[in-house]
């Protein structure tokens, strides 16, 4: 299947009964969507449950999809709504600490070596992870959505149902806090 086919076209084809179009869509957004969820959940199991709910909900509601919004907006909004439901049920916010503490060292060792990468040590990366987990929910969601989905700031704002200015402000605050964590807490916001 042609990789240049838009997500909207694939979704419309899936609406019409083309299961291969869905597989293409799934392959495109599988990893990024799962990371978006995993970095806001406390465990892989919860992330997989939410991930499955999002896709099954999309399958069930395929007839409701309209090409007036991008597919990414559609699917990430659904993912965000699942996250909010999960937060309400569990009564607590997601955390990145478990992931960072267990895997950070190994991942750093496997990362490609470059000028910036060399500069980021293990301790700095752990600080970064903790700072990301500690971000306020809105800032963290905006940052992760912006990083993982590849959407523009305007699309993120649409998905978050917020103004562009508010979304930009949340993103800037999040980046500043993460940068401060990388610098070892020496920079002021």
């Amino acid at each position: 299947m042609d990789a240049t086919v838009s997500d909207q076209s694939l979704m419309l084809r899936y609406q019409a009964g083309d299961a291969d179009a869905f597989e293409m869509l799934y392959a495109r957004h599988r990893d990024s969507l799962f990371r978006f969820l995993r970095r806001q959940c406390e465990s892989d199991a919860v992330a997989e449950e939410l991930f499955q709910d999002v896709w099954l909900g999309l399958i069930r509601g395929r007839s409701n999809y309209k090409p007036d919004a991008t597919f990414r907006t559609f699917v990430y909004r659904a993912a965000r709504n699942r996250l909010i439901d999960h937060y309400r049920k569990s009564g607590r916010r997601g955390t990145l600490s478990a992931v960072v503490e267990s895997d950070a060292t190994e991942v750093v060792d496997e990362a490609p070596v470059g000028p910036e990468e060399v500069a980021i040590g293990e301790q700095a990366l752990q600080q970064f992870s903790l700072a990301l987990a500690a971000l306020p929910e809105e800032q963290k969601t905006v940052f992760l959505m912006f990083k993982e989905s590849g959407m523009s700031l305007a699309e993120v704002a649409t998905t978050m149902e917020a103004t562009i200015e508010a979304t930009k402000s949340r993103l800037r605050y999040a980046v500043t806090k993460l940068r401060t964590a990388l610098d070892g807490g020496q920079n002021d916001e």
Partner: protein
Amino acid sequence: MTNDGTKEKMNDKRVDTAYDQLPGATPSAHIDAKILAAARDAVAGDDNHPNVGLSRYRWIGLAATVVLAIGVLLNIPGMPLAPTTQSSAETADLDTVSEDDAIVVTADARQPASLEAYDAVTPEANRVSQEVGLERRRRPLPPPDAIDRTAGFEAPEPVADTELEMLVSAPAIPAETMNGAQQMTVLELEEVSEESLEALKSSASSRESARSRAATVAENEIESIDSLVDKVVDLWQDGKEHEAVLMYRSLVKANPDVEFATYEAQFPKDLLAALAEQTKPAESP
């Protein structure tokens, strides 16, 4: 400013790099298979069952049809009659009506003169009695005590349907002047009368045909009045007084234009007395 901007940009790059170095996360193969299977099943379900709600309605309609068919086949009360059963029932009812009404009116129809008179009206009268039989069949069974009383009657004798038509319009006779058998006869007579009226009123389309049939029957009856009056006298002389009175009264009622005084002049005196006696109480209430 330039230095700050360069440093901020570099720091953003550092943020991106740090983020990219975070541990990767991917869903398990089990979740992948489950989601893709669900997607394919949903599409296949669309192909096989484009509208589940409609399918349910189809099942409901099918079930209702089956229940209706069973009800028709088993003749369950409240269900319509099966067409084949109805046609055979009409034939059966024709015989049944003749036998039942023979209980009501035991007239001697075996005399050759009477048979000749009845031949002309039998086809039309048969149709009417057929309608009466259908209506009667649809009505509930009489109570057990009524059946017991009927069982005490003598064996029915064949009677022409023309007499039934005449007796249908017979006026009520006071109960105190009758014995038990006579009261039953009147009850049956009234029942048949109601049924025949219901049958005639059953549909607007059948009214015209009923009127034409009634006109034909009336013409034939006028032609056979002489023989019927003779039959009344014969019945009276045979000791069947009640039947003779009933028959004569219904004959008079069915033919208001006929001058029966000339006939009554030939009647036996006791017959005239009986007619007069039964007329008085009937008029008093």
